[in-house]
């Protein structure tokens, strides 16, 4: 039997285990407003997530889809997360790319799907306007909330089953 020290590159099995555990945790905790699930029953590395906009923000009662791609050495490398639904937000570009430090340089293996989703949800209500991907949105957020909401709703598409 060869032994493998923990902390070195994990094998595929442990990624599967970890994601399966995270799924259970997420399902069982039933955190309101966020949800995620594997896209297929054969590949657990690709998930689809759903985020409801937080109350008291322009995103209230809107629902957005995101995609989560986990690398094979997850959780030692951050998953790639994109908004699938059209989005209007200072830190999210028109293609759905997200600018969030914990998904980039501040990623740590202690984060999990649940914390990522919660971070994204709070990002919707509290954008970081110092480093915007969408400059117009950043500007309007501070100056003209009505116009912001109008442009958001113009882009927003309700999810169809």
């Amino acid at each position, binding site marked *: 039997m060869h032994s493998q020290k923990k902390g070195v590159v994990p094998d595929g099995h442990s990624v599967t285990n970890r994601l*399966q*555990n995270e*799924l*259970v945790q*997420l*399902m*069982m905790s*039933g955190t309101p407003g966020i*949800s*995620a*699930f*594997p*896209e297929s*029953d*054969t590949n*657990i590395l690709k*998930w*689809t*997530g*759903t985020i409801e906009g937080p109350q008291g923000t322009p995103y209230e009662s809107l629902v957005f*889809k995101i995609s989560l791609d986990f690398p094979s050495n997850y959780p030692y490398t951050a998953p790639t997360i994109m908004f699938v639904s059209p989005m209007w937000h200072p830190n999210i570009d028109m293609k759905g790319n997200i600018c969030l430090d914990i998904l980039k340089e501040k990623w740590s293996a202690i984060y999990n799907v649940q914390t990522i989703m919660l971070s994204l949800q709070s990002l919707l209500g509290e954008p970081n306007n110092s480093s915007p991907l969408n400059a117009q949105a950043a500007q309007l957020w501070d100056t003209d909330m009505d116009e912001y909401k109008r442009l958001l709703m113009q882009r927003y598409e309700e*999810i*169809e*089953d």
Partner: protein
Amino acid sequence: MTTLPLSQNAFLSVFSPPDSSVAKSQLEISNDLDMVLIWMQELMRSSDPKLPSNRIKVALKNVCGTEDILLLRYIDSMRSDFKRRDVSIDGLDLRGTASTVAVLKRGYEFGVRYLRLDPVHQTLFERSLHAVLRTLFPEKTLLRIYSQLFSRDVASVTRILESIGLGEQIRNTVMRLAVGHVKTHVTETCSGEWDEPQLQELDRWIETELYPRINVFPSAGSKSVSWEINEAAGEYDFIAALKGIARDRLLDLRITESFDIVVDYPDSCPALEEMKLCLTASDQRASLVNSFIQACNKRLLHSAVNTTDIISFYIALIRGFLVIDPRGVLLDKVARPLRRYLKDRDDTVQKIVHGILDTENELAELAHELKRPTKEKYDDLDVNWCPDPIDALPDFKKGKVGDIIGALISLFDSSEVFVAECISLFAIELLGLTDYDVSEVLFRLELLKLRFGENEISALDVMVRDLVESKRVNAAVHSDGLIGSYYSLTVISHLYWPNIARETFKQPALVEQHFTRYRARFETLKQGRTLHPVPMLGTVVLELEFKGKLVEFTVDPLRASVVALFEKSSRLTLGDIMAELQLEKGYAVRAVNFWIKSGILYEPETEVYITLEGDEVSEGHKPSSGFSEDLNDELERDVLVMAKYLPFVTGMLTNLGASPVAKIHGFLKMLVPKDIGGYSATEKQLEMYLDHLVEEDKVEVVGGKYKLRK
């Protein structure tokens, strides 16, 4: 034996007389031969043989050198003589017949003495004579004589037959008979007798009963044809051979009975011990393994047998086969099919864990087993190390096969499933405690830790600590006497407790009031923490005044709350109950059914319930048709079981949109991990559950696909 039909002339034409100096005419020699033969026959018949006359002496001298031909003719005449006498043994006078034959034989032997044959011809004659005798007493006849070993004649007949040289044949016959006797005896006396040793009794029987009967040879006086050349050793050998046969036979019998013997363990220990003694040859071991596995497949490993019974059998099997073979190799082999089968049963884990933790069920011996000190761990540096037995299978684990709990736990690759089941059982037990006394639970917890390791069951530590903490909190809360001492709470850390019922209902005002006060006290005691009620769990001791009598019930809070509603009005509909308690229909129906079965409520019309207090209802009104109820129960149970997959179903439908049953089924099968019990439902059950969700308006069906209702 065949004899060549040599005519005298043909013979003489080939061979010339050896002594050419004394040339004799062929005719002369032929005459001499005839004369000698006639003389020999006369000699044989007369009781008082006389010395040969001079003429005969001359003739004898003349035939010297033609012994071959003389002998052939002599034997020919002897054979026909025996035949003529018709010594058949069908007659009653066995002894007479045997004596006649013996006299004849002696006569022929006597005659031949005068010929002064050389050793070669002497042997030839003896062989021929023996052959003739053997055809007279074929094996069949001997068997018939000796099958009645008790008949008094046998000894004398034996003496005569022995004297005419048939000792060997008799020995074989007697041996065959003895073996047959031993086999029947073993089958007759030992079948099903497993609770006491049989071997000693068999040995005794062979020595003191069978052997004296078959030992038909006179022990003294006879020399070459007695049983044994060397008396002492030979006798011993024969008895030992019979004992060996008895052992083999007993083992064969035990092998066919092996399944039942194991079932009978520990009563069958003596039989198992004897199997160990008898089991020496490797083909016997193989045959034991094969026939046992066959019996298992036929009688145990199919769906008609309870899992509990299979596990009990496995336990008996482990103990029993370790008696037969302490090395555990045989056990390892016969247990494999059983282990494979147990692994496939859904309720194996549950039954085993119940057996380990619960002292009052069919598998309670597992609990005792757990309390036994575990053997020291197997050490590679053990000085007494020896290699695995030669017939062990490659993945045989020495020292593992005998550990019953270990064997059961190792049925599954990881102990996670066991730990999960243990935790849920402990949860039920801890919640059932009314006095916060965890000492007994702690004891078993420590035993479990020895088995599974500290870390695996750390959740249990938290659960036990919750109980201890609750005791303290409870004492503090009750210290000011504001809350009745009959109202106690167990405060649990919800993250660590499995299967906490999430459903709630509106508790009766009195209970609600108590809870609010309790919570207030708790919040002052534990800053920054609060309490959430879990009304589905708990115990209520109720006293119902019923038909003037006090009846006590110990029930769960839901049932108590339902029956409490009937305090105010004696007639309620199911709808009333559901509305009053803000309860789901399934729970309401179950609680009501309980009271109907207890004879407190009665259902005069569908979904309307009245208390049975009045006398208008006779005893005859018992719960209605059990069948539909059971069916309902089953459905409800299914729904309850499936409820744990609900988060997955909602999670999936939220993110992946509308999906058909098959797809949901596939996902659940793939994604629900083992440590929360895995997903074992069929697609049919899932569909039923989804339809149930549709009824509850949680889900809707669109074009054959299920989707979440917004």
